[in-house]
């Protein structure tokens, strides 16, 4: 009896090869038996197949332990154990590009090699990753065992395989390289039957499948992505790691959450209260129920977390001056401090904070919150000089000569005058001036009828402030519709709730004085084509006018900066300082940041810009490279890429508000904050693996058919690539698009 044992991997056609060999001998009139040793039925798993040949009927129905010859379809399977039971002088027929001499580690046996994968691919048998080599090998076998090629041809025809199999077999028949007996001492590897004890079912590991080392078989493999961007992170003007801090919140780790926030912003408590939170607008959770209340969580982290003041690892001696202690200036100072500088801020006002102090009313941003955040910056090593205006060319020149770099962060502190005909100074005031007076405690009596002109946040703040000062009737006049109002949506709603009236599509024309009363004449408008900023332009409707009586008229139609103190060589365009995204001006020592450059109008944008300008200054002083903040938009995880059906619906935790009748009588904070991490648990962690910590068992662990994924911490998983067969089911089932695939470059064929 001749006994062949075939070593291959599931999917390679090894069992079929056993049958083809059987056919070859059966056609010659022998009795044959061909069968596979079926293990787990998986692509890539090592498999055995056998062909027995005899002159008489074969009646042994057990497997073959002492083969005469081996056929090795995958050289990565070669180990000393492969010789187990092989009879001396037997052939090892190996699919390999190397000559037989290459395999001189098998003394006492003979080696024949054939580059069957190449030949099979030449005839388009199988795919590049899984060439099917059985007929090719059969051709080589016929040569090795001294058969006529016609036998192979007859066999392939008998089993109805396509013509190109014959061509591949013919090539192999002529190309196979047959070696002599490898010299040296015969290496006999005895058959070892498994004898390790089997753990009992109940106390043992129920149902654990054997780890199959099929890792080297795959052409692709999954990995936990590190560059998928959650949409909230992408859309944060400050560049905050929102997903990251919420992750810490899910664990109730307020300090950790605040620490993550503080990497990008020194003002989380302020932005949590005043940012229009564009992050929430892009939250994927809205495709399930309601978006995450990110600003409420930021506020919770900022209010409850505790982080020690900065202690930079190195102290730098270079001096940086910053003009203006608004959010841009504070952020720039804070980030410079992180680099080790000790910047000095020059502030013209008696208290630091810029527009956060002078413009934003206390019912939105209480003084104690702002004070605490500024104190943190001061405690970290930033010096703030108040009542220190830099408002003349000489004072600016002095800074330039004393400091290594100067950052201009003066904001837009002057209201634009509408120059309304008939307006008198006694009852017309700029919105910024009105808010400044109230914030610094000056007595302001707006009277019975207040009109606010404008649609931005200053207009809303002024109107709500006027209400709180006792004005029974406050009307906002805006020349476009509510759609186009640049003010924060929630703020508009709060103003309406408090009783502020909105008159849309009216533009002020001039002021009349009749019977001792001031009357604003307004003209009806309609919306035309969108302008450069995308908002539809108002067009006057001829002959349609209305009149509104007022006791105070507040103008909130835009702001500007007084830049007369600047040196001439600093480029200015349309009243704004010209810089690049990092705040680098035309003067190499001068940098500019915030609204005076970009007119973004939010604290959050200013914080983000402040970080970039700090990078630029550091780059200028130390030569460190500028970081690349450009984010690849295609890496944002969308709801469509996620498997949202895993997530149970839940209600958004809204921030409770103080009751209207109570809050409009004072400047107490309106939004009261939440005190629960439940909202953090609603976060889907888009694109970032959290081991499904917030929604049950890790889906990749659950679905991996090879059980190669394991938890290493409560929120981190690891793939055992030796067992991973690259099926990518984990990637498909991942609820949050946290898994990517990569192609594996096959190394040169192992020996």
């Amino acid at each position: 009896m001749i006994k062949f044992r075939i070593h291959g991997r599931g999917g390679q056609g090894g069992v079929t090869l056993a049958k083809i060999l059987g056919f070859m001998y059966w056609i010659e009139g022998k009795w044959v038996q061909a069968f596979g040793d079926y293990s787990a039925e998986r692509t890539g798993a090592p498999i055995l197949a056998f062909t027995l040949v005899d002159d008489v009927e074969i009646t042994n129905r057990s497997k073959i332990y002492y083969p005469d010859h081996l056929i090795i379809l995958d050289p990565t399977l070669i180990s000393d154990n492969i010789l187990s039971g092989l009879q001396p002088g037997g052939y090892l027929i190996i699919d390999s590009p190397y000559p037989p001499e290459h395999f001189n580690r098998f003394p006492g046996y003979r080696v024949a090699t054939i580059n069957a994968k190449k030949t099979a691919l030449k005839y388009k048998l199988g795919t590049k990753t899984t060439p099917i080599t059985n007929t090719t090998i059969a051709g080589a076998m016929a040569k090795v065992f001294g058969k006529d090629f016609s036998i192979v041809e007859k066999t392939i025809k008998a089993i109805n395989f396509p013509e190109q199999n014959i061509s591949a077999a013919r090539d192999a028949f002529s190309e196979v390289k047959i070696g002599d007996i490898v010299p040296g001492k015969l290496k006999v590897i005895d058959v070892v039957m498994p004898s390790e004890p089997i753990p009992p079912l109940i106390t043992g590991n129920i149902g654990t499948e054997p780890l199959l080392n099929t890792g080297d078989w795959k052409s692709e493999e999954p990995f936990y992505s590190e560059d998928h961007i959650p949409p909230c992170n992408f859309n944060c003007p400050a560049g905050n790691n929102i997903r990251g801090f919420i992750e810490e919140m899910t664990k109730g780790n307020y300090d950790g959450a605040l620490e993550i926030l503080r990497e990008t912003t020194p003002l989380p408590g302020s932005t949590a209260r005043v940012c229009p939170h564009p992050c929430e607008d892009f939250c994927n959770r809205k495709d399930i129920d309601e978006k995450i209340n990110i600003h409420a969580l930021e506020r919770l982290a900022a209010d409850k977390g505790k982080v020690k003041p900065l202690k930079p690892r190195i102290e730098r001696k270079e001096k940086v001056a910053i003009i203006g202690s608004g959010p841009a200036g504070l952020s720039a100072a804070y980030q410079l401090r992180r680099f080790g500088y000790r910047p000095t801020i020059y502030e013209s006002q008696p208290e630091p904070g810029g527009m956060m102090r002078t413009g934003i009313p206390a019912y939105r941003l209480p003084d104690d919150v702002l004070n605490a955040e500024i104190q943190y910056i001061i405690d970290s090593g930033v010096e703030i000089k108040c009542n220190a205006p830099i408002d003349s060319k000489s004072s600016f020149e002095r800074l330039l000569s004393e400091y290594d770099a100067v950052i201009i962060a003066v904001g837009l502190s002057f209201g634009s005058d509408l120059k309304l005909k008939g307006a008198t100074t006694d009852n017309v005031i700029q919105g910024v001036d009105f808010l400044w007076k109230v914030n610094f405690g000056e007595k302001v009596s707006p009277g019975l009828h207040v009109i606010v002109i404008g649609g931005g946040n200053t207009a809303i703040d002024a109107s709500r402030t006027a209400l709180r000062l006792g004005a029974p009737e406050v009307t906002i006049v805006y020349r476009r519709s509510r759609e186009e109002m640049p003010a924060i949506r929630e703020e508009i709603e709060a103003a309406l709730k408090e009783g502020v009236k909105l008159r849309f599509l009216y533009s002020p024309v001039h002021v009349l004085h009749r019977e001792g009363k001031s009357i604003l004449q307004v003209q009806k408008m309609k919306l035309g084509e969108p302008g450069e900023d995308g908002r539809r332009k108002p067009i006057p409707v001829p002959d349609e006018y209305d009149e509104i009586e007022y006791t105070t008229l507040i103008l909130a139609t835009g702001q500007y900066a007084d830049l007369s103190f600047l040196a001439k060589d600093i480029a200015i365009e349309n009243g704004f300082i010209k810089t690049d995204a990092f705040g680098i001006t035309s003067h190499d020592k001068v940098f500019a940041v915030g609204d005076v450059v970009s007119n973004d109008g939010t604290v959050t944008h200013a914080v983000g810009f402040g970080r970039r300008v700090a990078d630029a200054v550091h780059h200028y002083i130390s030569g460190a490279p500028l970081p690349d903040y450009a984010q690849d938009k295609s890496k944002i995880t969308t709801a469509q890429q996620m498997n949202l059906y895993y997530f149970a619906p839940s209600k958004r935790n809204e921030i409770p508000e103080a009751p209207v009748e109570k809050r409009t009588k004072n400047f107490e904070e309106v939004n009261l904050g939440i005190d629960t991490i439940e909202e953090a648990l609603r976060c889907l962690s888009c694109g970032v693996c959290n081991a499904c910590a917030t929604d049950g068992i890790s889906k990749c662990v659950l679905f991996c058919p090879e059980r190669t994924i394991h938890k290493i911490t409560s929120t981190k998983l690891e793939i055992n690539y030796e067992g991973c067969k690259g099926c990518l089911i984990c990637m498909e089932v991942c609820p949050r698009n946290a898994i990517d695939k990569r192609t594996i470059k096959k190394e040169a064929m192992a020996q």
Partner: protein
Amino acid sequence: MISELCTANYAGGYTFAICGNANRKARGCGTGIYPITPQTEIVETVVQLFDKGKIEKGRIFHVESEHSAMGACIGISVEGARSFTATSSNGALYMAENIVSASLFRLPIVMQIVNRTLGPEWNIWSEQGDSLMFRDWGWIQIYCENNQELVDHIIMAFYISENHKVLLPSMVCVDAFILSHTMMPVMLPTQEEADEYLPLLDLPHRLKHEKPFTIGGLALPRVTASHRYDMEKEIYNVFDVYKEAQDRFEELFGRRPEDPAIGHYHEDAEIILISSSTVSSTVRNVVDSLRKKGIKVGMVKIKMFRPFPTEQLIKLVGNAEKIAVLDRNFALGAPNKIGGIFVQEVFNSLWFAGSRNLVQSYIVGIGGMDVTPNVIEDIVDDISKRKRPESSIWKGL
């Protein structure tokens, strides 16, 4: 017959199709099919041959479960068409209700069972527990040793099951992978040969719309008892009809399929090994080699398990001093901890005949463990030294 090199699965599927088509001049044939490893190739073969037009009058029902597969077969059969299907392991368990219905309806359905270990834990390899679960409900059971026996016994099963003296379904069983996926030379029947061998199916109780009646409705206790007793009497008619089928086979094809129980070197044996299915082939191998060494060992292969060939067994065993029974199956909690299902029948047979041979039970190949010549030699060694029997001995752990 035509010579082919093929797996048991292909051989089974082919033979089903040919035998089914042999009924085309009567009411044709049909099958309900559902795949399960390692049986799938059988039903795939049937479908391929059907698509090639090898089944001229018939229908294949691709159903959603094994339960429905047998349900379809019952419907086909009760309409008077020739019906067959195949399943394995847990598929048979899911089919269980209708497996019992088929025999209680007295329908001559033929089913190939590929013997696979019942899960959990999940195991695709060979063990006989799946078909033996159905030993008590009137199915004829044949355990095949090689692919040729499978072919021969599918042909014979239609002949026997459809005989009016029997009218009971048949299971023709092969070991998972050891036969189902193993290629060996086989003689397959041509269509003409099957046509000649098999009479057209004439089911006496087939449903006719011109004369409607109900089968399987409510029955009072004595009615059911009487029907069961009829089955009990008639299942033993299988032995006579089996002989008829053998004779006819030999007459037409020039080969005589073996008896329900067969001996080898049994006449003068001191030790007899009793086995079934593919284990018998390996046992024969070992018996031959031990005889060459002068050891007086013989064997008896039990091919038919239901009805159990008691008389033949008694004759074959004769006066052998010691009997080793090899079971690739196990009944938990059996008397004296002797759980082999075949060995229990052997005990019953020998005790009733007054025989007092030493019988030792060996459990082999559970969960698809390989039964090698070594294992069998160990058993011969063990029983030759043995003075008295003990509980089942598990080999290979």
